[in-house]
């Protein structure tokens, strides 16, 4: 992935991804993690890395439950100034 952010933020991204994987693996879930970049059309300096998490064979409410936990993980592991640089977007397929 071509990451336009600082090495520090890249470390946070890897750290957070590992935490998400460790959490999901305990439920033996079938999932896919990809990265995308958001860039605003009005302000090109506004760029955000999106962790795109696709969870397969689960209902919407399960995806929501997992997302809420993952969101807490991100809140607890990223300091306030970095929370607007990395976002997590989940999708259920099932």
């Amino acid at each position, binding site marked *: 992935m071509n990451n336009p952010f600082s090495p520090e933020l890249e470390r946070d991204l890897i750290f957070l991804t590992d935490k998400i994987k460790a959490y999901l693996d305990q439920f033996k879930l079938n999932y896919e993690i990809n990265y995308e970049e*958001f860039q*605003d*059309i*009005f*302000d090109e300096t*506004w760029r*955000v890395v*999106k962790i795109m998490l696709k969870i397969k064979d689960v209902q*919407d409410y399960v995806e*929501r439950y997992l997302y809420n936990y993952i*969101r807490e993980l*991100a*809140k607890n592991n990223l300091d*306030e*100034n970095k*929370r*607007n640089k990395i*976002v*997590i*977007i989940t999708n259920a397929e099932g």
Partner: protein
Amino acid sequence: MQKDDHTPADFLLIAEDVYLSLKEGGKAVATTPHEAAWERLAISLCFFAAFNAALNELKKDEGFVMEYHELIKHGNKNIFRFVIDKALQKFKLDDLLELYELWLNAFFRLPPDYNVDLKDVEKAVKIAGNCLRAMQFI
């Protein structure tokens, strides 16, 4: 004249009405044939429901209110970025960014660059519902 006492949830309710009308056929969309225009409108309503909810929550913080009014007074900053950034920092409301992207596509990328469809509306309604629920507006 009626008092303007709507809440962010009212925007979402209208968007849900449009979505259901498009999906199942109904009065709202039967009056005009422009399905894509309804879809773009519904996505905008979803975004503004979530955006207003986040703004209302952020305005409970005096520091935010001062900063917000300063920015409006000078008119030189992207207010969407300011509010969404703060919502991400304070509430980790990640879905709001996704909804902002859907709104950008719905409102600023017209055919042939972007063709909106019912799946976008479905996604927007779901995200807005989740955002409002997270902030206890519904």
